[in-house]
């Protein structure tokens, strides 16, 4: 996800959430995953392609993901899939994200209501 240092804190955890959510549908290899996230977010979010692998590996070390190597079209791909532990993590961060999202939505909506004439 390309971003400025200024919104780094705001975007923390978003790549993790998107990866877990996308892999909860089916197993994918790295390139496919990046494209799927790009497509599923209406082409608004494109993960930094090279940096997605360190994140996938870190998530695998935490046992949220599992991987397997498979040969396809004369090349070896590493497919990632969600584990039960990863599924629990996904549920947790989806719940956190929804809570935060509604809070921000409320705050922004509140500002708009205040600025509206009676």
């Amino acid at each position, binding site marked *: 996800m390309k971003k400025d*240092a200024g919104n780094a804190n705001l975007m923390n955890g978003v790549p993790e959430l998107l990866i877990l959510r996308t892999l909860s549908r089916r197993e994918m290899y790295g390139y496919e995953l990046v494209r799927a996230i790009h497509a599923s977010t209406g082409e608004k979010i494109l993960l930094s392609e*090279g*940096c997605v692998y360190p994140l996938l590996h870190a998530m695998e070390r935490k046992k949220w993901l599992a991987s397997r190597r498979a040969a396809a079209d004369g090349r070896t791909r590493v497919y990632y899939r969600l584990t039960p532990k990863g599924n629990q993590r996904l549920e947790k961060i989806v719940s956190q994200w929804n809570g935060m999202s509604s809070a921000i939505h409320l705050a922004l909506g509140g500002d708009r209501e205040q600025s509206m004439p009676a």
Partner: protein
Amino acid sequence: MNNPCRLENLAKRLRRAGAEEAYVQRLTEELSEHYREHVQSSIEEGAAEKEAEAVAAVALGSNEEIATEAVRRLRSGAWFGRHRVACLGLVALVLYPLSAVLLASIWVGLGTWLTRHGVSKMGAAAHVWKFALEASTDLVLPVAWFLGASWFCRRYLYGRGFSWALCGAVFAWAVDMSAWATLPMDQSEKGKVVVGLAVSLRPMLGAMRGSFLAGFLCVVIGSLMARRRMRPSI
């Protein structure tokens, strides 16, 4: 990523930061595969080969960006990486006394062996004792510390800059401390053992005090060195 130089540069950066070889291999293989997928996909969509390669290379990101992210993830995945201040103190408290005890046992053993073989009667044992004591405190002990701490940092903390900052500070401190770790020599049999133990214990006590100072210094220096390389990239 079909440019072997670029791939090799990335691998070098990761190795320098302390990443294990198996991890470096896996990451570079996956990046290489990703690059090929991207190029092929662009060509299938109608792009020229050169154009497709350029687009794929840009999308993948720079070596520095990838290496920074990989090292950051490795660090955050290890307890030692997350609790750097605590483990710096831990390194000092564990490794320094350990090396002191190890070396003390070597030269106490040497002295005992010389005494058993009657060398002390010739006066040579006193010189050997003195040499061993001074060598262990002034040279061997800090070197053992230096190597041990360096290995520890490379293995668990990731980052050569940070490791060298730690080891440099500790080395300077250990050399300085060893200067006063000399006691008057007692030439009696019992006295030699007492002096030997005292000389080994004094650095241990000093290590407890010095470790916190060394740890603090290293955190500051290491953080300054690492800050320009550590940028959020995802």
